[in-house]
Each structure stands twice: as structure tokens, then as C-alpha cells.
């Protein structure tokens, strides 16, 4: 599987497929399932400083083309980071700790705790609202992206990955993240969405509104990665509706060096990781490349 080995965001991965934050990465048991599923790195649930129960149920609604969720950043808080990191390190896998703060200070604290716990990289969740921001997510404001990433990168030596949704000024936000010290970006997070049951005549999610993930958002993810890679030849981790080798390859061709699988782990099961890896191997043979790195951003060539 040497051909699938890839370096991204300072991590050395035996293949490019990891889980997306929010899928099974909040407790050791879940991490073990991810390890057994064959991910090349473990991405944790987003940790906040204080423990969070999360939003009232329903927190996830299956749709024909994806998943609608409003989990509410349920997590055990900053003290829960180490036991999750340990489980991943025990399995010999790189671990990316996702952090979500409502202020720069919180991001700094979480970053330090993640580094102390032994994280190999930090993924900054910019899709949560900022206490002093004016938008639904930090990523909307490039200057907030700068200050949050800076607060994270300035207190730690491990690589910082900025995770963004498809915001209006995405390329600008990525530029700010890079200026502030980000080593890479993850694109994209969920799209703002909701569902109303027409008989009950009410929103189904406990939080009323939430995020859409899965196949429905894949074409948006492709474009986000393509547009950012066109502007910056940086390390991109692609996420958004990856469910098989083809959707994974599409993100790589757009410019991603690695991909995250979220919804498909839920709807298709844990075996999807192995299926994607095997499919990518066959694909690489068919198209005649020895290393997947030769394919990164290939769609940009004439």
C-alpha cells in the first residue's frame, strides 16, 4: 500500500482516509472502532473547555441524500482529551484533536491541552459561533479566522489545521488561516440546513436548525477544494460526501492530499474505510500512478 502513503499537515499517513470529526471520536470505545475500521489517523470529536451535553434530541435526522445533524458539540470537555488521545496512540495511529472555542483564550487553552495530551495535530473547528462574532460561524469573518488560528498556533508547536465550511469569502479565510500559522486546511464542514415534518408542522431537530452532510454536499466540497487549491498550493484535507473511492479520488484531484469520511461511516458502516482504500489502490493501478501524491490537484492541469 506504499502508493497510498501520504504526508499531510505534518502527519505521515499510510493511506489518505481518516474519519471526520464528530464520528466516534469522543470516547475510547469509539476510537477503537475507528482504529479497527482501518482509518489512517483518528480525528477526535471537537472538544470545548467545559463539558457540553449538547442539544436536545432529535440530534440527527437521516435524509435520502445525507444526514442532518445538530449534536451541539457534546463532549466531555478539556479533561476528556487525554483518554481519547491515548487510545489512538496505543493503536499507533496519528491523532488529530479537534477543538472548538468561543473565544481566542479558549482555543489557546484547548490547543495546549491537546499538545500536552500527545496530539499529532490540532484541527480548529471554525464552524462554531464566536462569542464576539456576528455570524453563525467564525469562518464567516476572515479577521476572526486569523485571530482564532493565531491563538491556537502561537501556543503550540504541533501542526494546526483550520477546518472551514463553504463560506462566502472562503479563499480569503484560508489566506488568513495560513497567515496566522495554519499548516493545512480541512474543507468543508456541513452546510446550514433544516427539515420540517409537514404533518407535525415543526422542525425535527431539537435545535431546530443544523448541518447537512453526506452525498448532497459533495459537489460543494469539490468546488471548495478546487477553488482554494487554485489559489494556494497548500495541504488540504477534503471532507464532504466521501462515500467510495470515486468521491475520495474526486477530492484528491481537486487538490486534497487526504480525505475524511463522516456520514458514510454512519450510513454505510465502518467497512467503508477499507472499501475506499482498496478502490483507490485499483484506481491508481488503472490510471498508472505509483503514488497518490501524483494525483493531488491533477484536475488543475491542462
Amino acid at each position, binding site marked *: 500500500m506504499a502508493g497510498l502513503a501520504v504526508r499531510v499537515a505534518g502527519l505521515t499517513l499510510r493511506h489518505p482516509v481518516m474519519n471526520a470529526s464528530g464520528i466516534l471520536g*469522543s470516547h475510547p470505545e469509539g476510537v477503537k472502532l475507528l482504529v479497527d475500521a482501518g482509518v489512517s489517523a483518528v480525528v477526535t470529536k471537537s472538544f470545548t473547555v467545559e463539558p457540553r451535553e449538547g442539544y436536545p*434530541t432529535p440530534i440527527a*435526522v437521516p435524509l*435520502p441524500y445525507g*444526514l442532518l445533524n445538530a449534536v451541539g458539540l457534546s463532549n466531555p470537555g478539556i479533561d476528556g482529551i487525554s483518554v481519547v488521545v491515548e487510545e489512538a496512540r496505543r493503536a499507533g495511529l496519528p491523532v488529530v484533536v479537534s477543538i472548538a472555542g468561543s473565544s481566542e483564550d479558549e482555543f489557546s487553552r484547548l490547543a495546549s491541552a491537546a499538545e500536552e495530551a500527545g496530539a499529532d495535530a490540532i484541527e480548529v473547528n471554525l464552524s462554531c459561533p464566536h462569542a464576539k462574532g456576528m455570524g453563525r460561524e467564525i469562518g464567516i469573518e476572515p479577521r476572526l479566522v486569523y485571530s482564532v488560528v493565531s491563538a491556537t498556533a502561537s501556543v503550540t508547536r504541533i501542526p494546526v489545521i483550520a477546518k472551514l465550511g463553504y463560506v462566502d469569502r472562503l479563499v480569503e479565510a484560508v489566506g488568513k488561516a495560513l497567515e496566522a500559522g495554519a499548516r493545512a486546511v480541512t474543507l468543508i464542514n456541513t452546510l446550514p440546513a433544516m427539515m420540517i415534518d409537514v404533518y407535525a408542522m415543526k422542525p425535527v431537530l431539537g435545535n431546530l436548525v443544523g448541518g447537512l452532510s453526506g452525498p448532497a454536499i459533495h459537489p460543494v466540497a469539490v468546488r471548495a477544494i478546487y477553488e482554494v487549491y487554485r489559489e494556494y498550493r497548500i495541504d488540504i484535507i477534503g471532507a464532504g460526501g466521501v462515500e467510495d473511492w470515486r468521491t475520495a479520488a474526486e477530492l484528491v484531484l481537486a487538490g486534497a492530499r487526504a480525505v475524511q469520511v463522516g456520514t458514510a461511516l454512519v450510513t454505510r458502516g465502518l467497512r467503508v474505510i477499507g472499501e475506499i482504500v482498496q478502490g483507490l489502490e485499483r484506481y491508481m493501478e488503472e490510471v498508472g500512478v505509483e503514488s497518490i501524491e501524483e494525483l493531488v490537484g491533477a484536475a488543475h492541469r491542462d
Partner: protein
Amino acid sequence: MQRYSYHSVELVRILWRGPRQVMLEYRYLDSAPSLSPGQFILFWVPGSEAIPLTPLYSDASRLVLLVVERGPTTARLVSSPPRHAGVIAVLGRRFTYRGDEMVFLAGGVGVAAVAMAAREAAQSGVRVTVFYGARSAGELAPVEEFLGGARVIYATDDGSRGLRGTVLDALHASGLRVGDVYTVVAGPKPLLCRAYSEAAEAGQLERLALSIETMVRCGLGFCGSCTIPCTGMLLCRDGPVVPAVRLGCWVVRECQN
């Protein structure tokens, strides 16, 4: 193809009311999920939350639920079942047993957790006995029609129906110990613990399965809230009916022996 789906449902009638319990019949307004025995749903009460329930019965047209009041959402369901609700399905792992004989020990609302399994086993030719217990006769829900012809033996704490005692007492009174035949137990934790203990002492853990309860939030296997303590299992993926041989650690933690 799709493992999970959302379904709008509408209340057809209230089948039965008991003290802090209700049996409800809903119908699916569009498509219906295909539930196997052992599997469960998240039932969304608009204006309240979504709670995990194992249906007494579910097919293309009918969804029958037995609900016991345990918190605000179940209290709402029991007192004032909504005309319209939502179902997220299909959660959990299918449970199948195909030996000659099996028994179910169902304490209280635990009978809902095992009804479809009992029915399917009985209809497949397994000799099935369901031991169904509650505090008194008034709290025994009329579930027989959903048990597929299985034999039902009642037990009540106050003796107002069937044997005076627990379902475990009733099992013993019938001449059986836990693990003599394949046994599935659902109900309050002390019942699960005692059943485990009995099977363990007889060296018959592989003939026992317990219906576990945990908090359930996403129901789809990604949020981790339904982790069955100490086992590495997620209830919404691997349960709720779990073979006893996988529950040693859980028992040590959860049962005061």
C-alpha cells in the same frame, strides 16, 4: 439500501391505558421502515424529544408502542400522545434465535423490548415461553396478541395475576433455571443482574442474552452516547439485545453482587 430513514407517523388509537403506561397504535404516513426483531426506533414527540423505543409491533401499516412514564417526553406521550410524530429507524442489531426452545423474561416495560423477537421465534417454530411480570395485574399490558402464539406466564408482586413473585420466580416455578434453555431477559437492572448471576453459576452464559438500556442520542452510531459501559459496544449498533458472554465487565460494574 439506505440503512437509516425518517418516517412521519399519525396516531390511530390508544389501545390501552395503565398506571403511568400507555399502548399506542400509529400508522406510517409515507413509507414504512422494515424492522427486524431486536431492533428499535427513535420516536420523536414534536415539542419534546426523541426517545428510543422497541416497538411491540411494526409493519408497513402499523406501529404499536408500549410506553412507560420515565421522564418528560414519555410523560407527554403517556398523558397526551401527539397526533403526529416522527420515527427514525432502523436502529440496533437484529436478534435471531433458531433453536428448539427459548424463554423470555420480561419485567415491566421490558416486554416491549422482546415482543417482536418472541413473535418471530414462535412463528418460526421455536417453542417460546414469555414470562411477563409487573407489580400488579393492572400494570400488565395486553401484549399477548403481539407475541405470535408464544405461551405467556404472568407474575405479579402482589399475586393479583399469575404467580406471586418475579418473573424469575415464575421461571423457577416452571422448573427451569436461567440458561437451561436459551433465555433473553429484559427489564429492570436487578433482574438482568440476577439472571446473569444464575446463568454464570450454571456455566450457561452462552445461553443468555440481556436487553441493555443506555442513553440514546443520535441512534445512528456516531455520537458515542450509547456506549455500553466497559464493553466497547455501542447499543445502537450492537444492541440492545446483547449476548451475556460479552457482558462480564458490564455486570461487574453495573450489578452490586
